[in-house]
């Protein structure tokens, strides 16, 4: 069967790709576009390592088909920093040692940014429930939650 030709926007740039009907967005990002910052931990929507945003909405890219990207704006971890200027969440994750192995980190950062875009002043409980779809096996979440809450405070102060 012929592949589909898809036109989309990824991290602000127009992108075209070919994909099979059954290919997930995660597979397209990793295998076709070589954007391997988006990780596969389960491919069943349970771990959040493949988190991206589609028109600002947080989704697991393993639960989305590549063809569904047509005409939408995708953001991945590769688009989070502005050149060599890290996003405040990225900087704060480093300062708080909020990562150990780092495999879940892109997903957490994408999900955390989506949280702060909706809710610039989350409580600890709100942050914990928003990030409950992202699994981390190394940190016990403590330093991740602290980094997110402190970033939110900084960004509120800066705006």
């Amino acid at each position, binding site marked *: 069967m012929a592949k589909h030709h898809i036109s989309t926007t990824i991290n602000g740039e127009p992108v075209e790709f070919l994909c099979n009907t059954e290919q997930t967005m995660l597979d397209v990002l990793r295998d076709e576009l070589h954007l*391997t910052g988006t990780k596969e*931990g389960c491919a069943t929507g349970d771990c959040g390592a493949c988190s991206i945003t589609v028109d600002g909405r947080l989704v697991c890219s393993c639960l989305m088909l590549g063809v569904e990207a047509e005409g939408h704006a995708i953001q991945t971890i590769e688009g989070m920093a502005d050149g060599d200027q890290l996003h405040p969440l990225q900087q704060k994750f480093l300062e708080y*040692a909020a990562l150990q192995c780092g495999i879940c980190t892109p997903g957490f950062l994408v999900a955390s940014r989506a949280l702060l875009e909706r809710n610039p002043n989350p409580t600890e409980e709100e942050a914990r429930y928003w990030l*409950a779809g992202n*699994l981390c*096996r*190394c940190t016990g979440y403590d330093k991740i939650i602290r980094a997110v809450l402190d970033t939110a405070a900084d960004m509120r102060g800066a705006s």
Partner: protein
Amino acid sequence: MAPDGTPDLKVVGTRPIRPDGVDKVTGRAQFGADFQLPGQLVGKVLRSPHAHARIRSIDTSKAEAIPGVKAVMTAADMPEITSEEAFVGEGPADFKDMSGNTMARDKALYDGHAVAAVAATSAAAADAALAAIEVDYEVLPHVIDVEDAMVEGAPVLHDDMFTSGVDPKPATPSNVAKRMVFELGDVDAAFEKADIVIERKYKTAPVHQGYIEPHACVAQYAADGQVQIYCSSQGQFMVRAYVAKLLGIDISEIRVTPLEIGGGFGGKTLVYLEPLAVVLSRKSGRPVKMAMTREEVFRGSGPTSGGTVWVKIGAKRDGTIVAGDAVLKFQAGAYAGSPVGPGCMTAFAVYDLQDVRITGYDVVTNRPKVAAYRAPGAPISNFGVESAVDELARELDMDPVELRLKNAAKKGTKAAYGPTFGDIGCVETLEAVKNHPNYNVPLGPNQGRGVAAGFWFNIGGESSATVNINEDGTAVVATGNPDIGGSRASMAMMAAEVLGIDVERVRPIVADTSSVGYCFLTGGSRVTFATGMAVVEASKSAVNELKARAAKTWDIPVDAVEWEDGRAVPAGSNAGDFEPLSLEDLAAKSGRTGGPIAATSSLNAQGAGPGFGTHLVDVEVDRETGHVKVLRYLATQDAGRAIHPSYVEGQIQGGAVQGIGWALNEEYIYDDKGRLENPGFLDYRIPVASDLPMIDTVVVEVPNPRHPYGARGVGEVPIVPPMAAMANAIQDAIGIRMTELPMSPPKVRKAVDEQAAAEE
């Protein structure tokens, strides 16, 4: 020097940003599945759908005929290996078994056991090939539970397994691979002296390490026999050694390049895919990439044992514990080699106890072969012993921390596994709990507080490091241990401390097997200790060379040169009056004073400092649903010396939370055919952010005299105490002693109902 005599440290103990951090927050870091080679094929594994089955035949001809399929392999493509022991993560294992676990030869021994593999030009072709392989199975009776497997008449997995350690040697095969006994003093006489005896049996469920990154590798077998492997593992040298052994290839022909590792916790201390990818590459002439799905990780890679723990402890009325006896039965999965040995030795190690006996059984069942998991074996026996000690405290009406303080091991105590302890911090961690505000927070209805203490040996072992001084005065530190939780940061910090330069000027790398000396794997909490020692030694050699260059420059003897704050200075006024030479000055001129400055160190570190930790948890139990909510959690631990305190705290927090999952939710659920029913993160539920409070930590520092900065391993101790601490808190909350893990809502609810029925 500080007034107390400890060296005045500038870098060790600070919290710099980790050197690999930016790559990991921007998505640039390359993990196992992120790497690719041009022309690579997709490799996939066919796994047994049966818990126990004889493989009568495998017909791969239809699979081979599918367009795009370039290679199909079975165990027949691997050398048949005779028994030979190797020391892997959990302890000794057998290469014959390791080969059999990599790919089943005559029998499939668990649901998920690899039986064949394919390599094809696309995932779709590979899937079609797997579906076209015809395996003729003779399904055999199976056994999942450890005690069922020990019963006479149980289905026997290996007809050449005769229990070792029993006299006389059994005449019939069984599933009990080994029986072992540890004994100190006279246990039976000691129980005679006890006023109170607590005796109970506990049970734990097998749990998976649950690393978020599935196993993945790329292998290339070249026409001249050279093998390149790119993979994420807990040891590139481990991968090299095992692939060499399993496939009969010379070590010098294999080069393993480590990729970033997305969690391991012991589960990546052995090989699954790598030998298969090498064989498929050899057969196809193309590079082969293989990655497990999450389902394959659960069905085909090692969890740790589940087991039963029978405990008997005796104490005097004043709280002095006088005797301990335990029987541990651990399931090893399909091949012998559970961590029951360390389970035995750690069981009573928190206590000053002279009369101890522990009997252990290593038992095979139709489950995946266990792999190491953080402090292998210790959490299981600790759950039993620390639950029993809590029951003792209740019986004595003594505060559980005071009871532990009264009996705690300290310097000079004979460990309950034999040797006399040197400098240890068991008492300090108990006192840190007592002095923490969490200890006195008032509790509400259905809320309870639990405490437990734990121990792990920590290990040292073989490590190498190379320090290269660059011509601009920066340095590269190469070691051979995958960085699983921030170890590159601590390597750079220790090198910077010795060299006397900013840590930002040291670039630490994890080198491939052909570029640095041998390092034993990342495990046993050994890297900061042992590989750290190699880094310190290599850095000291580099400093000696730098001093020699300064001596040459000044024309004075080398012993008249001292190294201070990254500069060579004359040792006192007699040495002469020279302007200091910085590392930068010396590096810039190194070519003209004798050549490049580089130093290596290879050593076998002994004397790892034992680790202790005490955890305190508050829970609230919902009697309606059986749900246990963690309200507060405190983990205290002796780190010897925290090189990078943030990553020490991170190890403690992460280990504690894995323990909370072990305590409350995690288990393997099998159907009556022995098939795993919950091979995914939806149904095998590891803790998520909303399940937890902040994890408070107190790091106490009782320096390990065998390490240049006093470091001891920290990664494993924190998973030891949580299960008992949680059970003790649940008992405190609702007056029910939970003896079986996980203490999941259905089990707690059932226990509450039984309690209510008993009271009526």
